[in-house]
């Protein structure tokens, strides 16, 4: 029996793919992005403990495929009217690639649209398992220069690029690159130019921009962890517009969302 470790199932998600969606947040991530807004999901696939109002709570619960399907099917009628479906998020859903693939396959066989949010930071075998059952990939591109990516977030750019290109080649799958705009990191001009070069190389004409937010800050406190970006200010709307215009000037259609 396939089982997956899930730390949240969020219904009525409207910023994670087309239509009204249910987002399944899977535990575990190989990266350690300093700005992560779901830090409870970082690290190995195992439950973690945090403290809410002085009480210890376990984050992460094992689900059988049937159990998570039952949750997903609850909003079937909303998927039908909106063209929505499910989105696997995380963490990094590819860490639990076998479970993710089985889940996506089961959902797709019900005629429900599927999507994943991924960083592609695993060997290509992982994404290849899920692509046949994935309609939409929301693919995060973060730091593109290899030594820096490894240093700052533990990323392997070669994995990322291979996964991204595999997704692009999957004929039934739409790929939308998304760039978290983190001041001092991903939003650095040289990094953005590297992303643009790479998108040109791949022939991609569309990108979503996710401006930095501080909504995860309380979670670091609850997890008893230091939060390096605690004092980092949000991007100004001028700065966001400037980045948006940078992409537009390069003939890449950029959509800013999540915040404004």
């Amino acid at each position, binding site marked *: 029996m396939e089982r997956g470790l899930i*730390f*949240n199932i*969020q*219904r*009525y*998600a*409207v*910023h*994670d793919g087309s*239509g*009204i969606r249910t*987002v399944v*947040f899977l535990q575990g991530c190989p990266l350690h992005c300093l700005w992560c*807004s*779901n830090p409870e999901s970082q690290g190995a696939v195992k439950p973690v403990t945090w403290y*809410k109002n002085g009480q210890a709570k376990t984050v992460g619960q094992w689900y059988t495929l049937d159990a998570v399907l039952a949750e997903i099917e*609850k*909003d079937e*009628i*909303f998927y*039908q*009217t*909106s*063209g*929505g479906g499910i989105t696997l*998020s995380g963490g990094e859903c590819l860490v639990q690639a076998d479970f993710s693939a089985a889940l996506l396959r089961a959902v797709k066989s019900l005629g429900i649209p599927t999507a994943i*949010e991924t960083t592609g930071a695993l060997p290509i075998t992982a994404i290849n398992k899920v692509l046949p059952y994935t309609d939409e990939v*929301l693919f995060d591109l973060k730091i593109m220069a290899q030594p820096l990516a490894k240093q700052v977030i533990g990323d392997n750019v070669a994995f990322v690029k291979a996964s991204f290109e595999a997704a692009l080649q999957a004929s039934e799958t739409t790929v939308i690159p*998304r760039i978290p705009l983190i001041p001092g990191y991903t939003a650095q001009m040289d990094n953005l130019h590297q992303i643009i070069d790479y998108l040109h190389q791949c022939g991609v004409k569309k990108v*979503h921009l*996710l401006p930095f*937010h*501080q*909504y*995860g*800050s*309380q*979670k670091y*406190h609850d997890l008893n962890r230091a939060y390096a970006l605690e004092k980092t200010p*949000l991007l100004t709307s001028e700065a966001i517009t400037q980045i948006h215009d940078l992409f537009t000037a390069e003939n890449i259609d950029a959509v800013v*969302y*999540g*915040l*404004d």
Partner: protein
Amino acid sequence: MTTSTTTNDRPAFETTRTNTHLETMKANLFRQKRQISLERAKLYTQSYQQTIGEPTIIRRAKATAAILDHVAISIRPDERLVGNRTIRPRSGILSPEMDPYWIMSEIDTIDHRPQDQFEFTPEDKIYYQEVLLPYWSGHSMKDFINAQITPDVQQAQKDLVIKLNQTDKGQGHIIMDFEQILQHGLGYFKQQLTEKIAQQPMNDFFKAAKIVFEAVTRHFDRYADLAARLAQAETTPSYRQIELTEMAAMCRRLRTAKPTTFYEALQLLWLVSIAAQYESNASSLSLGRMDQYLYPFYQTSKAQGTSDEFIREILGDFYLKTNDVVLLRSAESAKCFAGFPTGYTVALGGYDKYGQYAVNPLSYEMLDLYEAIQLPQPNLSVRINAQIPRRFLNKTCETIRLGTGIPMLFNDEVCVPGFLSKGVTLDDARDYAVVGCVETTIPGKTYGLHDIALFNLLRIFELTLAALKDVPEVTYDLLRQTLLANIDHYVAIVTKGSDIVDLGHRTFAPTPFLSTLISDCLANGQDVTAGGARYNFSGIQGIGEPNLADALYAVNQLVFVNHEMTFKALVQQLDHNFAGSDGEALRQHLIHDFDKYGNDNAELDLECAKIFRHFALELDKYKNIRGGAFNAGAYTVSAHIPLGHDVGATPDGRKAHDQLADGGLSPMVGRDHLGPTAVLKSVSKIDNTLAVNGSLLNLKFSPDTLKGDAGIRKFADFLLAFTQLKIRHVQFNIQSKATLLDAQKHPENYAGLVVRVAGYSAFFVDLNKQIQDDIIARAEHRL
């Protein structure tokens, strides 16, 4: 002066003013404090003193005629339509013939009571105490009803299970046949009544109706005279003079003739509405499907070249006027129906009799105009069904996004079958409209006593727990069976109590003018109160379903499944209102560790659905004194607070006297945490088709989900799912800055408030204050 003409060869009176004049008129409406006007009560009483010995219906008709003939009238600056119920805007009017007592008990508090205050001048207080009160004491409808109340009804009231409404005011919650009156005009009805009287000279209903219709004609004359006088008084030729001259001419025409233009149709509609207000002084003489019955006139005027601006100006005047009529309620009633909902409710769109979606340019105009004026009346609603055009659905969503709770949505896929199940024809069922707040009715054909009684299901559950407390070996089945038996017991009583009020109205408050405009009263010569209408319902509201669902589930899990404590021990804790630290620990356990209605737990939701179904079907076994059905409702409007006060602590973790779930079918505040799709799923488990009389769902939405075109698209898709889920009604509370501030202060009430950002998972209440402040600061600019 010479009559000038505007462009397009339109008459000069159609010249429109600047955009600001509606704003000025709106401001004038709210400039003065609300006051009580005794004028109607005085005129009514003086007439009654002169008609001793005559049949009640004739006396009522003469009293109404006396009001129409003698009430002071005014045409306010800039008005295009005539007809003000009182000279001073937003005055409350009294009907001591219904109940002279409540106002006496509030005579010194009504100007500073917590809800809906009115000034009462010292002279009027004296007149009330020395003349009106003594005259009506012992002779009012209230006295009649009180004398008829049987001991079991009295006991059920004392048990706080049932509340009888409409014992202190006249016929409301009804929609007259505006289509007919606009199609034929007043003269046609007078003619019909004359013929009927010739055929049946002994029928007092026809005679009474004719007395009022003739008085309405004279009322038009009075306005015509006033307009002419005001026109003459304009010292220099002016547009106002032209307008007043036309208003005078229009009133002279409408005294008998049918309207031909949109302007005339609105004028007749409003004055008919005012006449019914004088006759009844009632809650909710609603307007029905305005976009449908006014559309032929709209088309005619447009074809003749009337400008959109002029149509907007007179329709805007009409909108303002619906806010001029406020309802004077007792303090108790005002608690339940706060903010004077007068019930000029309008239903836009929906199926026509051919089963097609009926929407037209006027439907859009009415939503646009709402956006411009944004006053609570007319209370717009949109009828949604599987065929709603996307364009109209989007327009509806954009209007809802304004965040004022208007329009409400009513689902044809529920309301139509609901009426069919009660013997309404398919044509009539498809023509339903909204009356009062959330009740539905068949316009022009129904006397529905939609708001006749409240039936507190949660209180019955509390009494059931108490009755079983000392029974050894209580099982869940026994609990459930006892609850159902108690519901049956009180259903028998509430139907009896409703019939007593029904009889009170028949005996004391026939309404011949209103009745003439309800089929088939004119055909069969009977007042609505005597059973003359085609459809004769009584609506009984089942109260507290969401709390009942939570309470039943918690008792079952805690006591009978988990065996955590005995039934008796639980009831004792409830009796002590969760006192002490053990009690509070139990309460927290009940709140946090057992699932709640609103979170899409089918087992829990369906158990409540079965209880509601039982209640609705039990009501169906009874017939009211007019031969009609008792229909179940599931709404509280704002009565969830006073009705909660009547109920002790309950196993859902609710403390004694705390509020119930708001609205009717909304989850208990703070107990749903999976967002709006889960709420809809829970509500859909309760068979909404059984709530023929009405139901109410308040849904909270965060503004960030409605942002931009994508937001509207997803919201519209959400509403299509709502339609398919066969939920009867929904209205939206868009969480503003104020709600978020409240969430910071009372996080326990906002457990379900999710921050929706891509790839991120958390609740608002889990964020630290600084981040919350940041979201609050952005909230106003989200849309």
